[in-house]
């Protein structure tokens, strides 16, 4: 590759050497959050992103930002050299000639860029998206800490699938605000909402605990999600139906993973059996909340999957596993829950702080 192929500086220019603190100007959390409405915050964030991109040498690296998903590339200088270059077969990646002139935030994954969610549908998408997001964030905590290497990989993979579901759903929810001054991206929804604005159910907010507790949470969560997405495939809302169709196959695999571990722990040693029994007892109070019909569901007939109708399928799947594992349904009373109305389990604040701190401390940072 000749120098002329990198007309605007080498790759190392794009990544100025220096300490992390040079790259990210220091500031307190309050600097990062100019007081004001959410829309102002979003505005700031976007401008900073744009500025950052313009300052840097355009290379393929800039093309993949965490939230610049649906990316429209226009290459003004593409007429001359890349064609010659391709003719010489020199470069598969003529990166330096690609500039990102316009990055639309996140039209990805729903595929259907014209569809916007109504406020009620958006609220429902937040329920499901937040469940997936919070569970994904928690499972990420197992990476490098699981009892065996294979489980690091397995839980990491499950977390990744769930993050994919969360992105699709939060992105869809964000379309409800599209075109208003309060335009929010999926990233805004994940990183810049406070606890009371989250809609996740308490089951997903239960701490990882020991491995048995995580498996008990996975078993109940994935059995619920399996029923949920099975039903949601028939939604009149095409976007929700598409997300469900995709998610179902993955959740099916997650459920299988949890079932296998439940059987192993229940049928393993005295200690493993004691722990899974205790763990199931710990998570069981939070099962009922998943199947409560909130008023929102009445507004979404034919669109949402009515939670109470998912219970028989859930019970049947659990019964099959418990019979084989010789476990009993824990005899505990249900928690009041309240996640769908913005009231959360006490550990939620810490979880959000950890999940959101980087994005809030350094708005627009990409890595």
């Amino acid at each position, binding site marked *: 590759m000749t120098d002329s192929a990198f007309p605007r500086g080498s790759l190392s220019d794009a990544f100025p050497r220096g300490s992390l603190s040079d790259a990210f100007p220091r500031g307190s959390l309050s600097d990062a959050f100019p007081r004001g409405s959410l829309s102002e915050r979003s505005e700031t964030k976007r401008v900073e992103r744009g500025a950052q991109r313009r300052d840097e040498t355009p290379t*393929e690296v800039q*093309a*993949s930002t965490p939230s610049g*998903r*649906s*990316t*429209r*590339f*226009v*290459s*003004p200088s*593409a*007429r001359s050299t890349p*064609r010659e*270059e*391709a003719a010489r077969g020199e*470069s*598969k*990646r*003529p*990166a330096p*000639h*690609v500039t990102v002139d316009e990055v639309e935030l996140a039209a*990805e*994954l*729903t*595929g*259907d*860029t014209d569809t916007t969610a109504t406020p009620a549908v958006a609220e429902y998408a937040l329920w499901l998206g937040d469940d997936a997001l919070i569970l994904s964030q928690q499972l990420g905590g197992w990476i490098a800490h699981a009892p065996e290497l*294979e489980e690091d*990989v*397995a839980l990491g*993979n499950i977390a*990744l*699938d*769930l*993050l*994919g*579901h969360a*992105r*699709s759903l939060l992105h869809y929810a964000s379309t409800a605000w599209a075109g208003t001054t309060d335009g929010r991206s999926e990233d805004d929804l994940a990183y810049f909402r406070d606890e009371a604005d989250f809609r996740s159910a308490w089951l997903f907010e239960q701490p990882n605990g020991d491995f048995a507790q995580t498996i008990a949470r996975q078993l109940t969560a994935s*059995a619920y999600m399996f029923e949920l997405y099975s039903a949601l495939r028939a939604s009149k809302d*095409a976007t929700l*139906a*598409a997300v469900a*169709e*995709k*998610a179902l*196959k*993955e959740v099916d*695999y997650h*459920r*299988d*993973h949890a*079932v*296998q571990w439940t059987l192993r722990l229940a049928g393993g040693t005295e200690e493993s059996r004691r722990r899974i029994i205790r763990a199931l007892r710990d998570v069981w109070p939070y099962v009922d909340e998943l199947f409560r019909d909130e008023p929102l569901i009445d507004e979404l007939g034919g669109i949402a999957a009515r939670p109470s109708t998912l219970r028989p399928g859930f019970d*049947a*799947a659990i019964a*099959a*596993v418990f019979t084989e594992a010789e476990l009993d349904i824990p005899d505990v009373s249900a928690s009041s829950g309240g996640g769908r109305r913005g009231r959360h389990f006490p550990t939620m604040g810490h979880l959000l702080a950890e999940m959101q701190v980087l994005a809030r401390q350094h708005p627009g940072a990409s890595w």
Partner: protein
Amino acid sequence: MVTKTTTRRAHAWAVAATVTDPEIPVLTIEDLGVLRDVTIDHETVIVTLTPTYSGCPALDAMRDDVVLALTAVGFDDVEVRTTLSPAWTTDWMTDAGKQKLRDYGIAPPHARAATLRQAQGAQGPVRLQLAVKCPRCGSLDTREVARFGSTSCKALFECRACLEPFDHFKVL
């Protein structure tokens, strides 16, 4: 005019189809069934991709590679869209793609997802597992070491005949 557009579209498809999976570089996105559509709208080439798994990070790399491949041959305005529907399945993988996987040492999806789903029957949470053939020695005497592998789409197996570990591209 129609002919010109058709030719440009075929050309764009052919170029987009050369992009490979960043994790499994022997497979093109066409082999995988990830490349769904290429259309031409005036000067803009619109390429539609579908993710294999919802959270697959390789999609970002594939999207960027598609743009780079097309701009390299002179398409100046390229838009990549992603769609979830219809949901991707390993049934879309081409036979050529499966052979490439085998040659690369990865056991390809060993059954049609649609058939397997039927065979497993309705709702039972206990799943039927068919034997996976070792890509090296062809033995069916293999066992699953881990349900999840190095990427979302793979599981880790080992062959009890030749004792080699190998990746299996899961049926989805």
